[in-house]
């Protein structure tokens, strides 16, 4: 089962689509989703599921990939159900709480919106590799160069942040193991004790990050890095297929907006 947002290297028309088209589509869908009614939500869910089928990911896999955020959804649902005033569906209330018809509807509706937002974002990252995403962001941000903001620098920052996540994760585990070997207990203890334990990890980890950054900067300089303009392994080119995809997506969004 794929993890949340994990890229799946399938061969599909969705995968081969220009990352800019996919980024723009997700951006447009996200804006629209926040303003949709129930009919629009059902329609958009059907479209997202169709894209996941086209991407050979499968609806079940796509939904399962959002598992890490389910506890948050459950919490959100109960907040809406218990705190929304309206007609109670039960004969008695539970102190200040009440399960209302309006609350249930709002809970399901808001849950649907958030789940759809997460599904759309997950579909993007499952069909676009991190490097394609970075290049896509870089290209989309190029117009900002007029304002003196370098899209190359932003892309490099994003790619390095992603690149160093596993390294820092491993570093943190090493520090935690080293502290555990010297008697630190990260599981038990009072809240203050737990905060102290976090500081025990955070301090050496911060030092390590600073040291790594220093070495990384030096290595980058040694390889001729200079902020600003640079070239890439692959340059993105908008093909006829990409224009067509963008057109179809815009039409779908217009259709949903009209119906909703």
């Amino acid at each position, binding site marked *: 089962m794929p993890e949340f947002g994990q890229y799946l*290297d399938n061969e599909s028309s969705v995968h081969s689509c220009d990352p800019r088209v996919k980024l723009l589509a997700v951006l447009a869908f996200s804006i629209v989703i926040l303003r949709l009614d129930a009919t629009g939500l059902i329609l958009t869910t059907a479209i997202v599921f169709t894209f996941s089928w086209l991407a050979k990911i499968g609806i079940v896999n796509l939904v399962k990939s959002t598992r890490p955020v389910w506890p948050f959804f459950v919490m959100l649902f109960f907040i809406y159900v218990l705190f929304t005033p309206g007609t109670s569906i039960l004969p008695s209330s539970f102190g200040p709480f009440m399960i209302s018809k309006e609350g249930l509807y709002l809970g399901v509706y808001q849950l649907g919106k958030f789940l759809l937002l997460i599904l759309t974002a997950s579909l993007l990252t499952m069909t676009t*590799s*991190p*490097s394609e995403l*970075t290049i896509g962001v870089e290209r989309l941000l190029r117009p900002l160069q007029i304002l003196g903001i370098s899209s190359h620098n932003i892309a*490099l920052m994003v*790619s*390095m942040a*992603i*690149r160093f996540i*596993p*390294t820092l994760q491993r570093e943190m585990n090493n520090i935690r193991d080293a502290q555990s070997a010297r008697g630190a207990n990260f599981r038990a203890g009072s809240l203050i004790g737990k905060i102290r334990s976090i500081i025990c990890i955070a301090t050496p980890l911060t030092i390590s990050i600073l040291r*790594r950054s220093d*070495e*990384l900067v*030096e*290595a*980058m*300089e*040694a*390889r*001729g*890095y*200079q902020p600003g*303009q*640079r*070239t*890439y*392994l*692959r*340059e993105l080119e908008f093909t006829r297929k990409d224009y067509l995809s963008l057109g179809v997506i815009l039409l779908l969004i217009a259709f949903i907006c009209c119906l909703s």
Partner: protein
Amino acid sequence: MIKIKNLSYEYKANLNPVLLDINLSIEEGEYLVLIGANGSGKTTLIRHLNALLLPSSGDVEIDGLNSKEVKNHIEIRRKVGMVFQNPENQIVGMSVEEDVAFGPGNLKLPSSEVRRRVKQALEMVGLSGFEKRVPYTLSGGEKQLLALAGLLSMEPGYIILDEATSSLDPVGKEKVLAILDELKNQGIAIIHVTHNMEEALRADRVLLMGSGQIIADGAARDILMNREQLKALGLAPPMIVELMTRLKPYYKNEKSILTIDEAVNEILNLLQNNDGKDRDYSFREAESYA
């Protein structure tokens, strides 16, 4: 050719200089090993060759390009590649091919040329087929090969390795060293900083550094056979040199023995020439390691 003239360097003004009046030239295709104890100035010296550090006084010229002129830095860094000790901290890309493409990208080469160089560099270090791999999933040796490929894609004339083999296992180390030999044969100069005396044996030329100065500069055999000088500078002579020095009383050969092959031959001779008389092979106390 790299030319260093009267190079002195101090990290902060009024502090003792880390490098003191260094004069040196390095030819194309040369395999040079730099040895010295910690704090002897090796790393400071090599960072001048890539314009990561600029001289406090004196000059460093790479193929006629003076490192003091900022406009020369990109070209100097293209000509002189550098591999650091920790491969993890020099990998920038999210995939192997992207990391190798980082250098050519900085040189603003067209994408087709970047792709050609990435393919060629990965072939040279034996990482073809690893293009899409995430660097995090590579072994330590593979990461160091990736770092090397990242330099090769810039088509340098000189490659510096700053203790780049120290964290590798024997197999990974041997692979990197074999590639260095191959690069040397292609005319690329190798400048290798190491504490490992066996690695130093592969060099055409060895520089011995101490207290920010070049103490000795010569053929590997001459420098590495000088046990007293190495020990005085806090370095351990190669194991073979130590072994054969201790065996010296039992064989007559006056030639210097530095490699395992030479040592094996000599020991075999020693055993074959045994005339049957009882010999005392116990080592004298004075011959033992200091």
